[in-house]
Each structure stands twice: as structure tokens, then as C-alpha cells.
């Protein structure tokens, strides 16, 4: 269950920064925020929030598989999100099924698979709550390297294919007329979501992933008029959200994933209100 690494005594912010676990949390949070600002912008402008929900919840099947086979649940989650991305893409493009129907089916099937695997695993499933709701204060140092590499991969793919990804998210039919490989680019978008979801699981958990993927990008959209600047501002808002959330979580002794999401939602609400009253 949730491991409380709570505030006790009269420590200041500077003192807790000396702790290894807190440093790890900050690094993990920044990596995740960069990924969610970039992928999240595509998700928001292309309206792929539900698809992202399906991919992220399917990850729970992988977490269950990890427990069952005795391997790293995060690796299982990675396999399942990639699999879910492929499956949604295949059914959408080759069997012409409605995306939200497929998404709903994969969402629930992934969760159910996870529950069955965990039931089949003898004994107690440690840290299960962390995978569902995140616990960034428990991210081990060895995970940071993997997260960093995954982020590097996401950044490389987006910068190489940026013009094509922008075209396909703006006007898919026209992108096809322009001779772009629309099917492949759509798969690439889904795979980006899958990779980003894995990065976010250790920060906010499977259940809360969609919120962190969309809130900073949706906030950034209010203030920007081009996709690259939307991504940049979403990254900044994401970093601010995660760091504020972690700090509040530590000092208030409340779950980190939930605190991060509430901070993100608060910033979005404030931005909406501010824009409404400023005309």
C-alpha cells in the first residue's frame, strides 16, 4: 500500500532536497512533464483523450502480468501499452471500427486482464496502489535511466516527424492527399502516447495518467497559437505542476499522484477563469 514518506519535524525545503528519494522524484517528475507536454499537445489538438485513456488503462494488464511472471510490472505495462496502441490502430484502420468503441473495449479488457493475473499470483501484490495512483517519492534510481532514454526516444521521433505529425493532426484527409503515410503516422502518434503513458505511470499512476497528459496541454492551448509554442508552454506548466504537487504531497503528507493532478486541475481552472474575465 501507499508508503507514507511524510513530513515530520521542522525540515525546510532545502533540507529535504538533500534526500536521494526527493532528488529522484524531482528528476522523474521533470522527465514525465516534458513528455506529457509534447505528447499531450498532440492528444489535445487531435482529440485523442479517450484513446489515451484506453492505452493507459490497458497498462494494468501488463502490471498484473509482471506480478504473475515475477518481472518488473513497469516492463509489463510497457508491453501492454504498445500492444494496445497497435490494436486500436489496427482495428481503426483495417477493420474500420469506431475508435471510441475499440477504446472502451481495450480499456476494460486491459483492466480485467490485470485483475485476473493478480488473482492468479500467489501472495500479496506489493505496491499495487502505487501503480494505480502513482507514488513519485518511491521512484528508484535505476528507473530514471530508463525514463530518460524513453524521453530521448520520444523527443527524437517528434522532432524528426514534426511537420508530418502536425499535418496529420490538423487535417488527416489533406495529409493523405499530400501523399503522407497517414496510417503509419497515426500509429506513431498512438505509440508516442503508449511511451508517454509508461513514463507517467510511476508519477501519477494508471488511473490518473489521462489528467496529466491533457491538463498542461489544455492550459497551454489557451495562451498559444502555434503547436511548438503550445508544447513549450505545456512542458513548463507540467514541470511546475509536478514539482508543486510533489512538494505539497511531502509537506501535507498526502498521496503524491493525486496532489499533482489537483494542482494541474487548479492551474487549468485558474487559467480558464482568468481568460474568461480578461475577455
Amino acid at each position: 500500500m501507499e508508503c507514507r514518506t511524510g513530513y515530520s519535524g521542522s525540515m525546510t525545503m532545502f533540507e529535504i532536497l538533500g534526500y536521494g528519494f526527493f532528488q529522484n522524484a524531482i528528476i522523474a517528475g521533470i522527465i514525465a512533464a516534458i513528455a506529457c507536454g509534447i505528447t499531450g499537445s498532440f492528444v489535445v489538438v487531435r482529440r485523442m483523450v479517450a484513446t489515451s485513456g484506453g492505452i493507459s488503462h490497458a497498462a494494468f494488464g501488463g502490471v498484473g502480468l509482471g506480478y504473475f511472471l515475477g518481472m518488473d510490472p513497469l516492463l509489463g505495462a510497457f508491453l501492454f501499452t504498445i500492444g494496445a496502441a497497435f490494436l486500436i490502430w489496427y482495428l481503426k484502420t483495417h477493420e474500420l471500427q469506431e475508435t471510441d468503441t475499440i477504446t472502451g473495449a481495450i480499456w476494460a479488457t486491459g483492466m480485467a486482464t490485470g485483475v485476473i493475473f493478480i488473482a492468479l499470483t500467489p501472495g500479496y501484490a506489493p505496491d499495487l496502489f502505487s501503480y494505480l495512483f502513482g507514488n513519485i517519492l518511491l521512484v528508484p534510481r535505476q528507473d530514471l535511466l530508463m525514463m530518460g532514454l524513453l524521453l530521448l526516444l520520444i523527443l527524437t521521433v517528434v522532432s524528426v516527424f514534426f511537420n508530418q505529425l502536425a499535418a496529420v493532426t490538423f487535417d488527416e484527409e489533406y495529409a493523405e492527399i499530400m501523399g503522407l503515410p497517414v496510417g503509419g503516422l497515426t500509429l506513431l502518434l498512438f505509440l508516442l502516447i503508449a511511451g508517454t503513458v509508461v513514463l507517467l505511470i510511476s508519477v501519477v499512476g494508471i488511473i490518473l495518467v489521462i489528467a496529466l497528459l491533457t491538463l498542461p496541454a489544455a492550459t497551454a492551448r489557451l495562451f498559444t497559437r502555434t503547436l511548438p509554442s503550445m508544447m513549450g508552454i505545456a512542458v513548463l506548466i507540467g514541470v511546475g505542476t509536478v514539482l508543486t504537487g510533489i512538494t505539497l504531497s511531502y509537506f501535507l503528507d498526502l498521496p503524491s499522484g493525486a496532489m499533482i493532478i489537483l494542482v494541474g486541475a487548479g492551474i487549468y481552472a485558474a487559467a480558464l477563469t482568468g481568460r474568461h474575465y480578461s475577455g
Partner: protein
Amino acid sequence: MEDVSVRYGQNVVLDGVSWEVREHDFAAVIGPNGGGKTTLLKAILGLLPLSSGRISIFGHPPGEGRRMVGYVPQFHTFDFSYPITVTEMILQGRLSHIPGLLRRYRDEDYEAAERALGMVGLSDVGDLPLSTLSGGQQQRVIIARALAGEPRLLILDEPTVYVDAPTEEQFFSLIDTLLDEMTVIIVTHDIGAISGRVNRIACLNRRLYTHGDAMITDDMLISVYGCPVDLIAHGVPHRVLREHDDV
């Protein structure tokens, strides 16, 4: 195009359609909703397979000929709130000309985008976000995106549906200037708007009824729509009352 048919399952949408449009023609395809207009467009653009027949664009099959075609889709299909500047949107009309995996925009692409904006009379809005333009300006930006690809054939899908009368006038004078350089095909059910402006007309309702002299006659409308249509009013709603007799 010769004897083109397209079927969706059992449903025959285009049946033995043959049509020829010459360079610098201003041609119109009219017909009721559901008559196959959009399917015809997609077939010309090579977006769907033909069940039979052949389409040739300046001697090329549709997939290859696409680089010579500029396409202006229906206005309402756009998400104008997408964060993108006018120039960035128009640059996307260059993507079919850019070689390589990266598809990075080159200087000549920026120049083509600038020229296209000039052609539609919007040279000063290139850096503005798409969402801040008026409806009429947005419509011209969509046309500019098609022009950026330096097409020999421009195809417009229902371009006059959501525009008011002055904008419509502006639109047709723009088309007039383009006709020196390219062929224009307009697809519409707004017969009043195109009447007297085009030099080649075809009426589509599963089959295509062609009339080279561009005169819309009552007989022609009756054969396509299955009912008499008032030519004076704009955008009269029509209903197809009965099946066609072959012309």
C-alpha cells in the same frame, strides 16, 4: 475519365461515369446530396479504388496526378481553433512536393506559400493564427493552401455554401484570375451561384449527365433532380422524387 464505377458493397455510388474537362475550363459538377459528388472527388484524388473504369489527370493515374491537383475541401470540415499560423497551414499544401523522410520546409516552399497568399489577396496575414481570421479570410486561406502546391487542376468542394453574397462575388473573381493558369472544377448543389459563370457542366446523380455548353436547361435539371427546380432562387432545397430515365 472513362466509364468509372464505384461501389460500396452492394451500393453503386457512381455508375459508368465518363467526363472530359479541358485545360483552363471552369467546370461544375452539380447534383443532389447523396448523388455521389464527394465520391467522384475522392476518386479523382485517388483516395478510393475504382470498381471499374479509368481516370486520367493530364495523362497520369490519380495517385500520381495528385501532385498536379489542388483540393479545397468543404469549409465546415475544419477545426479552425487548431493552434497554427496561416503560413504554417499553407505550407502543408507543399508537403507533396517535398522529398525525403523529414519533409522539412525549404526556402522555395516558403516562397510558394507567400505567392499563394498573395494570389488570394491575404499577403499581410501570414503570421496571424488561423483562429483570428474572419470566415471569408479562412475560406481564402484554404484555397491558398491548395494553390501553394502550384496545381494545374483546382478542385473545390461546395465552396459557396457558407458565404454571403459579397464574399461569393469576391470568390468568383478570384477564380476568374486563376483560370489563366489552371483548370478549375467546382462541385456544388448551389446551382444559382455557378449559373452563367462556368463553361462546362455535368449533373451527377449516380450517373453523369454532361452538357458542354454550360446552359442549364429545365430538361437537364428534371433529369437529374427528378423535379423542376427554380433557377432564380439560391440554394433551393431539392428532393429526388423518382428514379432517372436514362438520357
